[in-house]
């Protein structure tokens, strides 16, 4: 057993590819998702056509550009140039302020402001418009006490992620994907490799029991996956300030449960594939894509067609993402997700039993 684990570590440390997947990937993914792939709006170019050019209109414009979301885009003097500037890609939004802005405000009339956005990227356009209207509304509320008009203004608060930072959402997803990748794919490939290279033949003609072969294979990956999950947490905590509001111990415990699940899934895949290629394809299609697409990591499960929603129920990552989000962001305890935990534990058991049943003690 001990020799087996040592051997497994040597395999991993001597294979550049494994090392890159194991240690390069977490770093790159966290930084990539944290910095580059973000659906937040920041420094977007916006032009203003100010037809009043008085103190009030300038105040609105200043508020917009002071927010940090927008940068001054190219100068546009008339509405006829708007489309041209969108086509060139110089602008994402144009703010048109109608004539006599200050005058209308003072006399209690409705001043006109138009927001025109480039909706070829609908999500960004939506965000830009809502950010800009928020800023303009805030400005108009400042004026309301003077005007003394009763208005119903709903006050919204975003709990658990007040500034709506996307990194909060990505970190749980990345941990899940990486654990899936490292644990399931790497183990399935490494067992399939023994079959492909014929070393399984020698291992079988030895006193080792199937359980020992599998345990020896899996042990290094449990450790490495755990280190991986830990380093992602540390990275996201210190670089992106993602909070861990709940119990760290609970979080690590649930992580170990998920690692075991992913490993048993990997072992199961390896029992049904005879070479590395098959194992890799199976892990890719059976694990990676559903993990990314169906787990609710990127696309909300509520918006999926009913069939896919049903399908997502059997995706282990779906449950794990729910669990770590509740621990990290909401700070809730096991009483809120014991059901999800049980589901994960049940799935682990099923895959382990299936693997033991399918593990061949002979060649054919």
């Amino acid at each position, binding site marked *: *057993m*001990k*020799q*087996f684990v*040592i*051997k497994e570590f*040597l*395999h991993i440390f*001597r*294979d550049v590819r494994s090392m890159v997947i194991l240690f390069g990937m977490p770093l790159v993914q966290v930084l990539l998702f944290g910095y580059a792939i973000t659906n937040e709006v920041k420094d977007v170019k916006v032009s203003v056509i100010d037809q009043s050019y008085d103190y009030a209109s300038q105040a609105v414009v200043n508020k917009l550009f002071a927010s940090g979301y927008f940068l001054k885009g190219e100068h546009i003097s008339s509405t006829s140039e708007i489309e041209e500037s969108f086509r060139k890609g110089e602008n994402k939004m144009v703010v048109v302020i109608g004539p006599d802005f200050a005058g209308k405000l003072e006399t209690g009339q409705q001043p006109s402001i138009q927001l025109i956005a480039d909706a070829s990227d609908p999500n960004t356009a939506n965000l830009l418009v809502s950010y800009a209207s928020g800023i303009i509304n805030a400005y108009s509320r400042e004026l309301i006490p003077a005007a003394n008009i009763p208005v119903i203004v709903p006050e919204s608060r975003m709990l658990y992620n007040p500034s709506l930072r996307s990194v909060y959402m990505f970190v749980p997803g990345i941990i899940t994907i990486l654990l899936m990748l490292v644990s399931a794919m790497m183990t399935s490939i490494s067992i399939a490799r023994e079959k492909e*290279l*014929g*070393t399984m*033949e*020698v*291992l*079988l*003609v*030895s*006193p*080792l029991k199937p359980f020992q072969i599998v345990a020896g294979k899996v042990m290094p990956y449990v450790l490495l996956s755990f280190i991986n999950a830990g380093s992602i947490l540390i990275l996201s905590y210190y670089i992106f300030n993602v909070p861990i509001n709940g119990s760290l111990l609970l979080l690590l415990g649930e992580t170990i449960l998920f690692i075991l699940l992913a490993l048993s899934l990997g072992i199961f895949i390896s029992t049904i594939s005879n070479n590395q290629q098959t194992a890799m394809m199976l892990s890719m299609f059976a694990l990676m894509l559903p993990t990314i697409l169906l787990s609710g990591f990127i696309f909300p499960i509520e918006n999926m067609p009913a069939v896919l929603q049903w399908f997502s129920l059997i995706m282990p990552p779906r449950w794990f993402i729910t669990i770590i989000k509740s621990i990290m962001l909401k700070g809730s305890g096991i009483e809120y997700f014991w059901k999800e935990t049980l589901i994960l534990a049940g799935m682990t058991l099923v895959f382990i039993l299936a693997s033991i049943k399918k593990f061949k*003690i*002979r*060649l*054919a």
Partner: protein
Amino acid sequence: MTDISVYGEGLVKNYGKTEALRGISFSVNKGEIFGFIGPDGAGKTTLFRILTTLLLPDAGDASVEGFHVVKDFRHLRTILGYMPGRFSLYQDLTVEENLKFFAGIFKADISKNYHLIKEIYDQIAPFAKRRAGKLSGGMKQKLALSCALIHKPEVLILDEPTTGVDAVSRREFWEMLIRLKSQGITILVSTPYMDEAILCDRVALMQHGSIMASGTPDEIMSSYPHRLFKISTDRTLELLSLIRKMNGIHSAEMFGSDIHLSVADAETGIEEVGEYLRNYGFTAEKPEEAKPGIEDCFIDFMKLNQTG
């Protein structure tokens, strides 16, 4: 206790419609080197995989050291030393790491069993830190043999250990096997090389999943039913087709630059063959009486099987 170490009775194995083994029976005595000789596809690997508990026979029975290959497979896996036909060590581990690993999984003590592998391992010890994948073919085989021996198996099963190995390494490898035999280990070895047959105590000649003949190499060679002549020539192909046309010839085969020909009847002797050759202008070539080798026997059995 019997003196029989490995025993097979009516072993049959089919892969779909392909008959790999068609009812093979044999027995190997304790402490002997038993060779299964035959070309690729004769069923040697299938037979060895059944004996090493890796495959289940479709019919028939087999046991090793009194343990049944199906029922007692767990125990058998502790007393067998198996070297598959393909190099099956970890190429990314060093020589030393491979040996330690295999000692580890058999819970064997390297220092206690080192005397078994000393003479083999000493030759590769200078490369102990080299990755197994970077060794030459001969050294790989030595390492594989060391790994198969480190737990002091009672029976050693070697599937084509000398295939793809150079002539010098082949000779060395056989010297090692003969030394191991003197330690009391029963050795089963398969090989497509006929010249290795005489190094075995007993052999079985295999073809198309059946054993055509078995016995000591001497027994097999002396059972050769024809008179055999040998002709050395540098015009092998011409001479071969000429001889095959001669009356009274049973067979003529090429052995390197020699031709081995067997005669079908008593009237055809050296004189007659020599005269026949001279008539066709081959004056330099003189037929000589020859002792049949294993290969002569093998070819003869093969022909017998085809016609019968």
